[in-house]
């Protein structure tokens, strides 16, 4: 089996080398039967990206968990980390295969464009492969020296592995972001400066956004896997272990997801700086339906996660005190997402974009109130966390002051955002944008304050009831699986959005797409493709879990 795969890779790589090394081709495009050239490349690229995210996320995750286990001297963490690491060799292989397939396909279907890209970025391609090689070697050493090396050294090696993985991603991001916001080239496309081409407008936002998204992706996948194991667990120990794992995965997933809107808006701002009209088209014009769908998906992720935490509170001794808040939180979340998803301009094309506002929703769809809505939604998630944490504890007497402070910060956030929400409907857009950036930035210290107060409040406090792992209703686990699927879907959706922002350009403003696939499909068609590749991805990942044997392992009992 392994050999067969090895041979297959060699064949693919030779084929790739053949295509890459061919004389410059005259024709710009070739067609692919049935589903068309664009869809093939789209599906392969997105699958490859999802796997790349997976193999980046798992080591980040594994090293963090391993470190926690080391510092807490808790064997469970170490085992969990190792379970995850064992997925990597096969996952690397699949990623490499998809990468090779993607390169072969895009070089043969879009020869002129890919030839141009390869010409601009040639030196970085060598760096890329060098880094991939180093990363792979490091992975194997890291994986097979788990028990051999001293824990401290092993952790260090894990960090090296992560740095290498991140660098690989950065190189890929240089290519991707260049297509969106090219720099360092003449209008005709000739390269002036490679470093400007690499460090273009959206390079750093993309790096950061992808990195953080990958970690939350890892968290949710981990949680979904745990949910799956929880549902099929037979013994209470197993149930307890996977419940615990699902909880921690979700926590990491959500905390990092909360950061994403902030980085996403930075991305948007850089895009506006690069080209105003692109930003407008992207955020409010022809592509605004993407944001509608995104709001729906993120709503499922946020509400699904909160649902999970609320169900936990049902079983938590001591949580009765706080249960009364849950209905308010859920309504606040629902309203926030309703505001968020109101479309700005529901036009079918630029041609209809006479006024730039939606015929029914009108100004309701503008961006600033959406930011206020996101802020409120984020606040609800944070409060859910806080309640969950507090439920376990007995607040020591004489610390009421911290609760009051906490409440005032929360109240301030709500007031500020409601005010911003109201004003953004009546002031001109320039003021509106300034208001919304301010409220957005205010969230960071506010969340910090809320947590600081919480820390002070609960310092040295006693536990009311121990969290009883394994004692959650199965419903909650389906919530986790739905959240993970939604997360994959969201990544594929936004991958599409990023590429669609270029409209009919391979490289925005530099190289036009003159193929018959230059336009954009209707949202319905796009969502079908996105759903399809999400299912393929989940299928492949499940297969990796299965083939690695992780799914078959017992939890109890020492050496496995």
């Amino acid at each position: 089996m392994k050999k067969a795969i090895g041979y297959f890779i060699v064949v693919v790589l030779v084929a790739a080398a053949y295509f890459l090394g061919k004389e410059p081709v005259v024709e710009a495009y070739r067609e692919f039967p049935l589903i068309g050239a664009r869809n093939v490349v789209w599906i392969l690229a997105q699958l490859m990206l999802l796997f790349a995210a997976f193999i980046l996320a798992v080591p980040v995750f594994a090293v963090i968990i391993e470190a926690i286990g080391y510092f807490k001297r808790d064997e469970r963490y170490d085992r969990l980390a190792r379970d995850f690491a064992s997925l990597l060799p096969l996952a690397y292989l699949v990623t490499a295969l998809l990468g090779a397939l993607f390169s072969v396909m895009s070089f043969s279907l879009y020869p002129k464009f890919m030839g141009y890209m390869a010409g601009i970025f040639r030196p970085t391609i060598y760096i890329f492969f060098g880094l991939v090689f180093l990363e792979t070697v490091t992975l194997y050493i890291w994986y097979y020296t788990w028990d051999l090396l001293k824990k401290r050294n092993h952790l260090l090696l894990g960090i090296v592995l992560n740095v290498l993985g991140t660098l690989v991603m950065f190189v890929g991001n240089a290519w991707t972001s260049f297509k969106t916001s090219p720099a360092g080239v003449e209008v005709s496309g000739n390269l002036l400066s490679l470093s400007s081409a690499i460090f273009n407008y959206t390079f750093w936002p993309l790096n950061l956004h992808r990195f953080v998204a990958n970690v939350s992706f890892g968290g949710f996948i981990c949680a979904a896997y745990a949910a799956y194991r929880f549902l099929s667990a037979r013994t209470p120990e197993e149930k307890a272990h996977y419940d615990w794992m699902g909880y921690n995965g979700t926590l990491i997933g959500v905390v990092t997801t909360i950061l994403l809107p902030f980085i996403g808006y930075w991305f948007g701002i850089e895009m506006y700086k690069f080209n105003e009209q692109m930003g407008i088209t992207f955020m409010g014009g022809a592509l605004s339906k993407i944001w509608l769908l995104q709001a729906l998906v993120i709503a499922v992720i946020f509400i699904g996660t909160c649902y999970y935490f609320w169900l936990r509170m049902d079983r938590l001794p001591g949580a009765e005190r706080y249960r009364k808040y849950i209905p308010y939180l859920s309504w606040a979340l629902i309203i926030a997402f309703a505001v968020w998803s109101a479309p700005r301009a529901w036009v079918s094309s630029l041609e209809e974009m006479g006024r730039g506002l939606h015929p029914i929703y009108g100004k309701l769809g503008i961006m600033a109130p959406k930011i206020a809505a996101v802020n409120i939604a984020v606040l609800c998630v944070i409060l859910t966390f806080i309640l969950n944490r507090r439920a376990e504890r007995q607040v020591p007497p004489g610390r009421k002051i911290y609760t009051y402070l906490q409440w005032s910060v929360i109240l301030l956030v709500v007031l500020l955002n409601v005010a911003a929400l109201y004003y953004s409907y009546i002031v001109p857009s320039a003021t509106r944008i300034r208001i919304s950036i301010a409220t957005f930035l205010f969230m960071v210290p506010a969340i910090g304050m809320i947590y600081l107060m919480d820390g002070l409040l609960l310092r040295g406090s006693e536990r009311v009831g121990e969290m009883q792992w394994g004692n959650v209703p199965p419903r909650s686990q389906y919530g986790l699986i739905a959240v993970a699927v939604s997360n994959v879907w969201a990544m594929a959706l936004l991958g599409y959005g990023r590429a669609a922002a270029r409209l009919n350009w391979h490289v925005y403003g530099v190289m036009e797409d003159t193929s018959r696939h230059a336009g954009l499909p209707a949202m319905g068609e796009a969502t079908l493709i996105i759903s399809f590749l999400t299912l393929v991805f989940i299928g492949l990942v499940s297969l990796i879990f299965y083939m690695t044997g992780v799914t078959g392992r017992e939890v109890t009992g020492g050496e496995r």
Partner: protein
Amino acid sequence: MKGSGLRLIIVALIVTGLYAWFGNAIPQSPWEAPKRKVITAEMTPRELAREGAAIYKKSGCGVCHSVVGERLRASDLSRIGAERNVEDLAAVLYSGADIMAPANKPPANLTDEEITALIAYLQSLGGRPKVRLGDVKAP
């Protein structure tokens, strides 16, 4: 074990199905890549203006400008033909203004002929189209 695998598949199908359903339930609108207009020297200013109106739409000028007397992100153009002469219009279109990219650069990426037609259209707003191909000098 089997049972929960099946349940996982069902959840995945429901979730991805929900999104695909929603994506198909909203109004559908594929976006077509703009096509080049054929503009010839024989065209009268009026014919040019008609082409220019189509070019105005496909180039996304309406994202920022209104032609019916409203203020969007930039000034209203409903009387621009009366307010500006050919040179002014050409100057704005070829060099851009503030956040407006030059019309001969991406994303509009118009040819000189298309820009002439666009100017004819702008002249028709609050005035009469007068330009012919060759009247507008690219800087």
